[in-house]
């Protein structure tokens, strides 16, 4: 999990207040009674980076859950969903599957 991405803040955020604000915003958008899983994920992300000590530990020693868990590691880089425009799509449709 990338806690910065989960909370929707830049990865160089180092301000406890900004992080807390993002967490509270997450709670407002995904309240525990409606989206318990999303809420839990937000909370976990917040705990990972809530203060400078937690952030230092995360950046220095790494997230232990990523060791030996390829899926978790790949999840660090969730594929974006950019619009590619029609030309690339048509190239695939014209060119065949291979």
């Amino acid at each position, binding site marked *: 999990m990338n806690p910065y991405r989960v909370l929707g803040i830049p990865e160089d955020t180092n301000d406890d207040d900004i992080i807390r604000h993002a967490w509270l915003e997450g709670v407002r958008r995904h309240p525990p009674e409606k989206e318990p899983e999303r809420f839990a994920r937000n909370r976990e992300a917040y705990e990972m980076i809530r203060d400078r000590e937690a952030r230092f530990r995360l950046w220095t020693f790494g997230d232990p859950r*990523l060791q030996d868990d390829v899926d978790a590691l790949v999840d660090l880089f969730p594929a974006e969903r950019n619009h590619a425009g029609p030309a690339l799509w*048509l190239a695939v449709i014209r*060119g065949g599957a291979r």
Partner: protein
Amino acid sequence: MGKRHRNQRQHGPDTRTRLEQLLAKGDTRAAVETAKLLVREQPGTASEELAVRAYAERIRALIAEGLGREAAAIAAIVRERYPAHLSPWTSLLDDARFAAGDFDSILSELRDASDERRAVLEERLLPWIVDPAPIANSVALAPADPLASEARLVARLFETVTSRIATPEEMAALGDIRRRSPFAPWKLLIRAIDAFHRHDDDRVAANVGAIDVRSPAARAAAVLTQLTAAASKGPRSFAAERLIDRISGGHATLGAQIRSLHAASSQDDRRRMREEMRALSRSFDTLPPYACEQLRLALLPILGIHFGPEQLAGLFRIGERDPAMGRYGATIMEVTGMPFADGIWVAYADGLLEERKLEPWQAAEIYLHALATAGEDDDDPFGCTDPTHEHPAGEQLDTARVIEKIIASRPAPAVLDRLTPHLEQLDKKELRRVLTAWRKADPDAPVPLVRLLRLAEQEHRYDEALPLIRQGDRMKTIDPEYARLRLRLSLRKAEQLLAAKKREAAASLLAELAARPEDFSEDVAAYVLALQWAAAPPAAAGELLAQLAQRGVTGELILAEVTGALGMQFALPASHPSPEELLEGVRRGITALHSIGVTPRHSPWLLERTKPHLDRADERQLLAIAGVALVCGATDLAWAATARGLELGGPLLQRTLLFRAEILIGTPADRIRTLAVIKAAQVLAQRAHDSDIVARATELEHGFFFFRRSEQRLSSDDIAAIVDHERTAAMPAPRTQPRKKATRKSKSKRKKERGLFEP
């Protein structure tokens, strides 16, 4: 040899044979060239027919490769050159035209086609629509033709959904496309792309699954499946790769590279690992910083097993003088379970701290991490899992020094509180040093205060404890262990003062205690009262004695213990309680004494009074009597109490059994019998989660020189048989000779002689 044969020897098989071989091989490009040669060399119908077949195969191959225009050009040549041989290939030649986007012939026919014919023609179009634009713009089709309208709609919406999020109104227009239209798969594709960008993967899957696989739109559907299913990388065309990379921001490829690197590592394929890592590290500069660092920290240990530091630095594009190298090195050692990772972390923090590249609070975090790493290392203290994993003597992490570094680096309560789990690893001297430093750094912290009090109790340093207690009182410490230690240490100090005949000092200390009656129970208050009586001048003693007498058997027992311990010849006049009052009074007195760390030894005469009434005692009363009787040497009473306890059964049966075992150890009983009783007590205690008894039983068990750990556990029937036997068995005659000195060390003998509840 004839000319033909000479020619064959010079040029291999003849042209016709070569052409047939090329066609069989699927080399259509060479086949067309050979066909031209064949027609020149051997003009005639047969050669022309074979040549047309070669062209047809070439057209088919070009269509399959998506080169429609090239296929159409060749089809035009064939039509022009070989009009007499076209009949088997008419459909293929039409396909070539469609593949080039030339639908004019079929679209013209649609103008006046009946519904049935229209259905056939549209069905014919279905596999060839790779772009709606040619049909939308075709002049061969009437502008009002439904196919033309659908083509224009699909062209517009396809551009929309691939460029931005479409509005619901825009998407609603797709409802106009007929279910059997050749654009129906395109309608589903457009909906799937729209759902994809709205992160609605279920709707993507539903639309993709409904697309007719004959339609070229299905090729795009395959890409959508790969993008949403997080499936491992499947076969992809160059165009599909480019599309996926553009959409995913390159991350889909990155994910595939990470998986591939892991696979190479598990196969120990160093060459492939190196290649994958080089490819991966090229992305490092473009990756978001957090994810990039986590990727490095996760991959370094994997590659650290296979490559040396220099190779790793190269693969990860890290300068060897980069300060991060120390951190990465420690990470590799820690994650791969190599020894001394804890020490490497400490050295890393020390170095950076000295160079002022690290703030003290950051160093404290690293030291704490080193302590935690050392803790993990201690899980396997004998290096059982890895014979090379041993700490040579003198090279173990100096936990006390590291804790002192943490205290010096960041004496903040939030940090110091995290030291608590690591204090267990220190010996008493180190612990005292560390706790003193902690208290200096954070004078209001309750943890070091309580720990120092605990140490003072263990080492009987009561003088040191009193100032700590005064400070604890000033801090209004509410830790329950503080209250317990405060009481016990104050009582011990008062006893010490009384033994030294310093009655006034003792009285003063006891008065302080008595002023906080909320700290102890009513029965413990009787003990305080008894000590106050001992410290009081004769004029005040009478009143205190009267108060003690009011507490019945409990007061009698407690006073007997106090006077016995102080060597005073005094006892309350014997009371005449009912059997129930006697049994309960004894139990309460014993319980109160145990709670303040006093083992009753001076009132066996009082215990003996309970003997005729044991059949009325409950389980807890029997346990209290048996325990003290054992310590006082009243073995008969202990035996009788345990026999009655075994008869009663109850939830504390394991405790009764263990007392019985302790009695048996002091008699010449069969040692196998004794061991069986211990094991029965152990099993029952495990079932009841009675950890004290499990520990004590294990300790006793190990005291048997013939003890061998057996994996076979006693069954409930076995235990019932043991209990049944012990309940009715007579006590073996006590030893008349002192037991032969055990071959085991005196330490274990001393432990065996200790009572169950003795501190």
